[in-house]
């Protein structure tokens, strides 16, 4: 891993331009300490965090949809209960993260408005459809697996509320990944048709899951700054490499083939070589032209609008009770 440039290292002749509060922020970051909501922080740091945490929250909320699709059709009551618990966890993760973003001064309602207006981004992975039950397996194994790989280092993010939310989230995600693995394992031990369904699903989710780590390092303009601020700890490519290294032996246990003909162990590198990722597809999906973008946003918008009377009624009731308590 290369050491990122350190923007806060100030040359002595410029030192006078650093205010005391900025110096304190720089010292905390240099000491790998944590920044808390009431601390002074540079505008760029605040904006970067608001963007990252709210996008992360949106991803959790939109991420309920591909799996919500299968709750009513889960193959058994046990599977249905597990899937319900998992989707409930995703909602919880979104809520932890929205609260963390609010500590930076952005309002919950603004974040929601940006999401349903299509102005906010969320992980491109949730713009793929989930047509088969095996997709519940692949989402858990590959999508949640990639998310965990990304999120474990975020538990040490320099912004306290974000790191603390990530600790809770990571604890809960490990159940998600294992249950996905079990779904695929069960199918792979089943009939030829079930094995085919599992393999087909892995084929569809593998590449989008690798794209979850973001663009390659030489095309990731914000990464260096995020690493200098100790928000991000490892580069996109490093995390992707680590993920593939974990997947290969797991795929062997499952008996599925990872759909990359160029995937092979490189003895010299001590890591896997992999094929080229289709970044055109990634940018297309991110730009809103993925297979399910419109459907996902419309569903979210409808749910928000249909819940409006509930939010307003609850607020009105609370206001009325508050008046009564004073009287």
């Amino acid at each position, binding site marked *: 891993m290369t050491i990122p440039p350190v923007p806060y290292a100030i040359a002595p002749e410029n030192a006078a331009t650093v205010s005391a509060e900025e110096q304190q922020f720089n010292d905390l970051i240099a000491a790998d300490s944590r920044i808390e909501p009431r601390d002074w922080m540079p505008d760029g740091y605040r904006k970067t965090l608001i963007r990252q945490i709210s996008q992360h929250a949106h991803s959790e909320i939109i991420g309920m949809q591909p799996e919500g699709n299968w709750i009513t059709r889960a193959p058994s009551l046990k599977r249905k209960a597990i899937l319900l*618990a998992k989707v409930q*966890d995703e909602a919880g993760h979104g809520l932890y993260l929205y*609260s963390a973003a*609010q*500590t930076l001064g952005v309002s919950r309602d603004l974040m929601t408005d940006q999401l349903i207006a299509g102005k906010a981004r969320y992980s491109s992975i949730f713009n793929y459809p989930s047509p088969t039950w095996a997709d519940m397996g692949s989402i858990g194994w590959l999508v949640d697996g990639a998310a965990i790989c990304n999120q474990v280092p975020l538990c040490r993010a320099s912004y306290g509320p974000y790191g603390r*939310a990530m600790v809770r989230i990571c604890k809960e995600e490990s159940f998600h990944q294992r249950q996905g693995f079990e779904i695929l394992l069960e199918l792979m031990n089943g009939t030829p048709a079930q094995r085919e369904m599992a393999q087909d699903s892995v084929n569809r989710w593998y590449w989008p899951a690798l794209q979850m780590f973001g663009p390659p390092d030489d095309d990731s303009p914000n990464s260096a700054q995020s690493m200098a601020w100790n928000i991000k700890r490892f580069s996109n490519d490093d995390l992707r490499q680590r993920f593939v290294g974990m997947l290969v032996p797991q795929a062997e246990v499952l008996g599925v083939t990872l759909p990359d003909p160029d995937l092979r162990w490189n003895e010299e590198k001590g890591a896997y070589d992999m094929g080229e990722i289709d970044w055109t597809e990634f940018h297309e999906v991110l730009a809103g032209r993925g297979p399910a973008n419109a459907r996902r946003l419309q569903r979210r918008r409808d749910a928000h609008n249909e819940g409006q009377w509930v*939010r*307003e009624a609850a607020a009105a009731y609370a206001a009325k*009770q508050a008046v009564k308590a004073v009287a």
Partner: protein
Amino acid sequence: MSAPGASEKEIWPLWEVFVRSSRGISHTHVGSLHAPDATLAVRNARDLYTRRNEGVSIWVVPADAITTSDPDAKGAFFESPAGKNYRHASYYTKSEGVKHL
């Protein structure tokens, strides 16, 4: 800066959640949530923060009701204990090796 969630722009305020993990242990801050009133805040806190038996009791406090010491005055505010290491048992070394001290 006003407390998060206290803005007029928010339909519901933010609450800070404290959970007692088991009897005999104090309530510990676990995070925040969004709710219209205290009753619903407690219910939401149960659903959000105790899905895996994390607690036996929950407190919720409006985020707006918490007064914080000024982080910018940290040095001066917490100055008094500094240099007073005689308040710690480890300051007294001559009794080393003496039992039950």
